[in-house]
């Protein structure tokens, strides 16, 4: 293998070609290794706009780098180009099972092969103390020869060998989530077994259960309803296999190793038969299937280049002859007379504005100046919560935080800013990262407030849907007053939930029903 060299530019080693996918994490391209001509998949994440901390991404890479199984897509390396991270992975030319299903669902005999291979992949992962946490057809890839590979560990978590073997994070995709994952009551490798069962149904029927319902409603139904079953014209062994995976109590679900002994997969054929699914998809495409699929741009924009960093501040020294000692009106941050950024602003696409404030496009200097202009136009500073205050009054408020040396306030800022949202009692702080990243901490707080028990209405809808939804509005409002109003709204929901347990779930249910105009299934 290559010895490490200096700051490797991925483009020295890899050529990026067509975009083949897009996810919450970023985009995936096909490409090849210049040294070996081997095809690879390249995941590109812009760290500047990624919501995850770099440390978290590093954790994922650490996990990937320790996996080596024919049933898991192989990790080749990661490289930085500007603020864009390239994660180079094994390329599977067969495509994902969800693509391969586009010409039609799979026959049972094919499903049995896929499930057996998935079980082998899960057996490996679980023996390594790792969870996948997002098993679904879209994350199952096929190689040209029909080998089945688990992909997209974007959300995988490692179970600690010494600490509690239960994870407490809210990840995955609602339709495939197990009841215990949704309820955030802690889960282990059995959560993957549930998702496998749902995936089996997906492969057989084309969709997971509840696919026609809104995901919010599904979060509510999965813990409440009896587990789904495989209905239709399928063998008894297949239906039995699915029912083993889909048991409400995770302890009742067999492990991957045990499931490999089940008749359904024991009878399955060789993986090379799966190439028929790939051929079928090729034929379907050749006949014009999937013509309408979107072909979006493949540009990954670079960060906007701001002005030269030497040009604004006056340090009283002249390092460059061509730089004037003072720069006044030409500085790039200079307020312009553009419209203030408010709710009505056309620049904001309500449906697509991400919760993260850093995702405001690539032009950082641009948005800064727009914000600057809104302040300048108003001619005063935004008032502070909880009550509007004059600058003097505010100064006193802040001083209150300052211990003898006058710096402790910032010490708190430095340490809590990244790690301890549970120290805040404001929901907007806890939800800084938006849905669903920080749901956990909040849930713990709420559980402290009123003891949770399986029979009590759970507060998932409040914690995972409503509060984060309101939190996601914060970056889109410009005034402190609006932010206070949103905080109040969050508190009102929380209060209502305390007085009328379950009310949020019912409200969401009502809204979803009326919005979707689906028949209520109760």
């Amino acid at each position, binding site marked *: 293998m290559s010895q490490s060299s200096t700051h490797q530019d991925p483009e020295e080693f890899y050529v990026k070609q067509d975009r083949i996918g897009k996810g919450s994490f970023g985009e995936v391209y096909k490409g090849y290794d210049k040294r070996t001509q081997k095809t690879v998949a390249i995941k590109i994440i812009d760290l500047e706009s990624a919501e995850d901390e770099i440390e978290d991404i590093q954790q994922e890479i650490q996990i990937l780098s320790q996996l080596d199984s024919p049933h898991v897509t192989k990790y080749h390396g990661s490289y930085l180009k500007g603020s864009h991270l390239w994660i180079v992975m094994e390329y599977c030319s067969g495509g994902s099972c969800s693509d391969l299903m586009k010409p039609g669902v799979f026959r049972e005999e094919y499903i049995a092969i896929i499930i057996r291979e998935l079980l082998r992949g899960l057996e490996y992962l679980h023996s390594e103390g790792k969870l996948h946490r997002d098993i679904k057809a879209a994350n199952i890839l096929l190689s040209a020869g029909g080998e089945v590979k688990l992909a997209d560990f974007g959300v995988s978590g490692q179970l600690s060998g010494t600490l509690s073997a239960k994870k407490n994070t809210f990840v995955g995709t609602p339709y495939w989530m197990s009841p215990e994952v949704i309820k955030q009551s802690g889960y282990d490798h059995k959560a993957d077994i549930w998702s496998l069962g749902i995936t089996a149904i997906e492969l057989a029927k084309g969709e997971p259960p509840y696919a026609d319902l809104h995901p919010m409603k599904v979060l509510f139904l999965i813990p409440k309803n009896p587990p789904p079953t495989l209905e239709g014209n399928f063998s008894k062994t297949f239906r039995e296999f699915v029912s083993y995976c889909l048991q409400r109590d995770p302890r009742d679900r067999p492990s991957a190793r045990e499931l490999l002994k089940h008749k359904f997969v024991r009878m399955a054929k060789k993986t090379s038969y799966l190439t028929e699914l790939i051929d079928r998809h090729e034929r379907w495409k050749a006949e014009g299937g999937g013509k309408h699929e979107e072909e979006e741009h493949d540009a990954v924009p670079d960060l906007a280049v701001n002005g030269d960093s030497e040009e604004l501040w006056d340090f009283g020294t002249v390092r460059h002859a061509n730089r004037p000692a003072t720069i006044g009106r030409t500085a790039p941050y200079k307020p312009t007379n553009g419209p203030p*950024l408010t709710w009505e602003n056309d620049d904001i696409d309500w449906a697509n504005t991400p919760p993260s404030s850093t995702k405001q496009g690539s032009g950082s200097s641009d948005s800064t100046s727009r914000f600057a202009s809104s*302040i300048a136009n108003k001619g005063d500073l935004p008032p502070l919560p909880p009550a509007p205050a004059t600058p003097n009054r505010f100064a006193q408020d802040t001083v209150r935080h300052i211990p003898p040396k006058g710096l402790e306030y910032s010490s708190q800022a430095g*340490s809590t800013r990244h790690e301890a949202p549970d120290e805040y009692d404001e929901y907007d702080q806890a939800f800084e990262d938006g849905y669903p990243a920080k749901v956990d901490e909040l849930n713990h707080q709420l559980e402290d407030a009123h003891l949770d028990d399986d029979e009590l209405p759970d507060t998932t809808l409040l914690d995972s849907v409503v509060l984060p939804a309101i939190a996601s509005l914060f970056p889109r409002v410009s005034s402190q007053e609006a932010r206070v109003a949103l905080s109040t709204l969050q508190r009102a929901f929380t209060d209502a939930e305390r007085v009328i347990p379950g009310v949020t779930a019912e409200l969401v249910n009502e809204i979803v029903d009326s919005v979707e105009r689906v028949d209520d299934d109760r």
Partner: protein
Amino acid sequence: MNFFKTKPRTPPDLVRGIRDAIPKLDTSAPGSEARKKACEEITKNLQSIKALLHGEVEPQPELVAQLAQETYTTDLLLLLVLHIARFEFEARKDVVQIFNNLLRRQIGSRSPTVEYLAAKHEIIFATLAGYENEDVALNTGMILKEILRHEQLCKILLYSDQFYKFPHYIETTTFGISCDAFANLKETLTRHKPMVAEYLDRNYDRFFASFTTLILSNNYVTKRQSLKLLGEILLDRANFNVMTRYIANEANLKMMMNLLRDKSKNIQFEAFHVFKVFVANPKKPPQIEIILRRNKEKLLVFLKGFHNDKDDEQFNDEKQFLIVQIQML
């Protein structure tokens, strides 16, 4: 099969098996049968040792003690770290598990492996040098992380010249490894605070000369992460003296003011959390105050337009506080 079951190999057997096989990795030709056999022997013995330490059955204390003793007397841990790159993929992972398991092992309040390593500095440095080989850097990085949890061992690294290799490793490796090296640098500097505070105070110039190269790195991640770490170090109470020195230096202030205008919003934001300390200082040295005063109007305009889209009450409060402080200059 039964032959092996009835005659389990003892810890000294297992350790000897590995020690005998390692030289064969060097002497035999690559790809040769002899090398393959040596590799397999190592893999097999490491698996047995791992099973002995945390297998499916409860570990037997006397066997574990025997194994630990054997690794100390033969310097097995050093051999493992030095040769890990020659081992098979799974065997490398087993080395990490075995090393870290032994390191965590306690007898009462004593940690025998920690005591052993404290007398064998070369093992710590060999682990750090793992960053020189990208094939194993993440494995040795995991061992290093476990080593750094122990103050006694962390101190050995911090006070060594080898400590100053971190910036080199961070700057010359690919993303995953660079991040791992950075994470261990951070671990060294933040886990055992009073010990580190004393070090930084005593070695202020050398440390910051080195650390500043990371802040000025052309690498986006290195720059962003080292700024963030700088903020954490300065704002930690244990480092009060260090902070006072840092914020009295005008070159540092200029660097932060320029970084406030970096093209990356994340870097601007991290720079803010260092810049604020200069401004919040109630006893600003004249050279600092002069710069701030000279840029007073520009700073006010700049800060009023700085990251107004942030939904972060604490940040907004701090920004307002800085504005007020600068207005009063």
